[in-house]
């Protein structure tokens, strides 16, 4: 298919590939340097990039803005932490987080999918606030202190074993994991289901007129997004050894939305680049001034007003012009 979407996605894939190459180079340099902090910071950024991807699926492909996606991320993180404290198995933690994401995503989907637009945004916001508060007040989940003591584990991948304490090793694992999710989502978009999701954003009424159930489509998309957020959240305690209620707070959800918007809504790669950019900005600006939020806020507003397609969106457009065979209008 040579439609605009396919071309756009090819451009996205090029940019994703560029990112992968850049990340591998970064890992190599970091490993050679014996660096620990920057690799782990980048790993954290990749984990949150997964949350941003989950937001982009909803916003970019069905047009639904979720202001509470951190709910699933945080729940995945807590479940993973609880599992890891009992048994140090990477696969068990991931599986538990996946199941959590699917189940809570279904529940959340039933509640939230009755409505669209701003109402949807407000309901997702409210759901995250309520659950975050419940966790904040639950002593067996560590309450406001969160849970520490998540052990360092060894991840067995057939031939190789990666330890979560190895900065470069775990970074590469998370990178591979994220790129795998990206690949799955990109593939999804080429399927009929994925095409219908995009149609939803373009013109929901028409999709209904064509006989498809918009509710089922939106629900399916929501559950997928929740599962992705949970599974990425599961990686956080493996990296940092603890979880805290702050992982479900609005600031985490807002950061993901900001990353997606700055990166480029609907580009998938934009979510990844956007997350890395936000982490870098916070780190760099944070060391000059305590008021980094002003800078990020202004940048965010500027992108919304002046560059709605986002940074990657802009890059894609440039790339796509190169792909268009000359002579075809």
């Amino acid at each position, binding site marked *: 298919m040579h439609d605009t979407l396919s071309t756009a996605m090819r451009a996205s894939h090029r940019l994703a590939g560029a990112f992968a190459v850049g990340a591998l180079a970064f890992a190599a340099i970091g490993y050679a340097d014996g660096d620990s902090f920057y690799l782990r910071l980048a790993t954290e950024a990749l984990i949150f990039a997964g949350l941003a991807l989950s937001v982009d699926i909803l*916003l970019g492909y069905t*047009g639904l*803005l979720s202001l509470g996606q951190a709910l699933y991320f945080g729940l995945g993180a807590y479940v993973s932490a609880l599992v890891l404290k009992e048994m140090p198995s990477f696969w068990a933690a991931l599986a538990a987080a996946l199941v959590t994401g699917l189940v809570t995503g279904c529940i959340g989907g039933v*509640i939230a999918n*009755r*409505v669209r*637009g*701003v*109402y949807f*945004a*407000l*309901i997702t*916001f*409210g*759901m995250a*606030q*309520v659950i975050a*508060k419940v966790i904040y*007040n639950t002593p067996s989940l560590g309450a406001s202190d969160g849970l520490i003591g998540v052990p360092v584990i060894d991840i067995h991948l057939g031939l190789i074993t990666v330890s979560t304490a190895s900065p470069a090793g775990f970074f590469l694992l998370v990178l591979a994991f994220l790129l795998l999710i990206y690949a799955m989502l990109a593939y999804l978009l080429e399927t009929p289901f994925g095409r219908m999701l995009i149609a939803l954003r373009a013109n929901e009424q028409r999709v209904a007129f064509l006989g498809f159930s918009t509710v089922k489509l939106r629900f399916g998309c929501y559950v997928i997004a929740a599962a992705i957020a949970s599974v990425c959240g599961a990686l956080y305690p493996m990296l940092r050894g603890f979880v805290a209620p702050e992982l479900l707070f609005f600031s985490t959800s*807002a950061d993901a*939305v*900001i990353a997606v*918007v700055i990166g480029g809504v609907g580009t998938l790669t934009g979510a990844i680049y956007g997350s890395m950019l936000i982490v870098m900005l916070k780190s760099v600006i944070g060391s000059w001034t305590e*008021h980094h*939020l*002003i800078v*990020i*806020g*202004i940048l*965010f*507003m500027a992108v*919304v*007003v002046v560059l*709605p397609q986002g940074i990657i969106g802009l890059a894609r457009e440039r790339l796509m012009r190169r792909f268009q065979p000359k002579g075809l209008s």
Partner: protein
Amino acid sequence: MSAGDYIQFVLAPQVFTGLMFGIAVILVALGLTIIFGLLDVINMAHGEFYALGAFIALVLASIGFPFWLLLAVVPLLMMPVGYAVERLLIQRVFHSKDRHITTLLLTLGLSIVMEDSLRLVFGANPYRPDMPIHGAIQFLGIYLPTYRLFLIVFGAVAIGFVAFVVYRTRLGAMVRAAAFDRHMAASLGIPVERIFGGAFAFGVALAGLAGVLLAPIYSVFPTMGHDFLLLAFTVVIVGGMGSIAGVVVAGLFLTQVQAIASLYISPVWTDPIVFGIMVIMLMVRPQGLFGRLGHA
């Protein structure tokens, strides 16, 4: 505790407090509903305008303005701010297809910048302006601080004034016409763009007024905008986006529900209950109790 004691000490004061709190929430939500009803814009920064009003009042009071003057001056000062925000920022994204989402995102970014700016200028510690009216009266054994009574009265008058302007004046008619059918109103010669700017300014001024009024009771600090946000949005949704009557009814109802619920259930559950009401309303009757401004 005897029934009489219970009513005197617990139930009646609770209802009174709920009433005062309800008036406060209505003032904040009123601006929000006007902005949504007319402009279709969800103003995520509404709480920060509430905070801004309180801080401006603080600054002016420190250079000698008396409280009564502040009640008039602060909203007047907030209006150009609101007008500028609408014209310079919101108008830029108003004509895009995803208007609801982009304006939400834009005002979200604005709220982040505003909150941090307030912290930059004023610091993180709380301030508290003096209570303008001291003392209390005892009515049937219930303790009623005079300032809170004043608040109820003043709030009611302000709400009445807004309703009067919207429903009984020519300006209000123009606003409602623009909300109902923008293009028709424009072709009838109504300066729709200026009406939009003005409406946003008015909504923001109401939030600022609420900030001035509530500052002596709730104190002033940079994150105070979050206090009311979820509740104000719930009131607007339950009442019907754009409906003034809706905001009043929903505001009083929800705050009473909160006040009474916190007596019988742990107060921590009042937020989930209010949120639950919002969800149910959205699922059952999304246009709220009274529908929209142009269609009231």
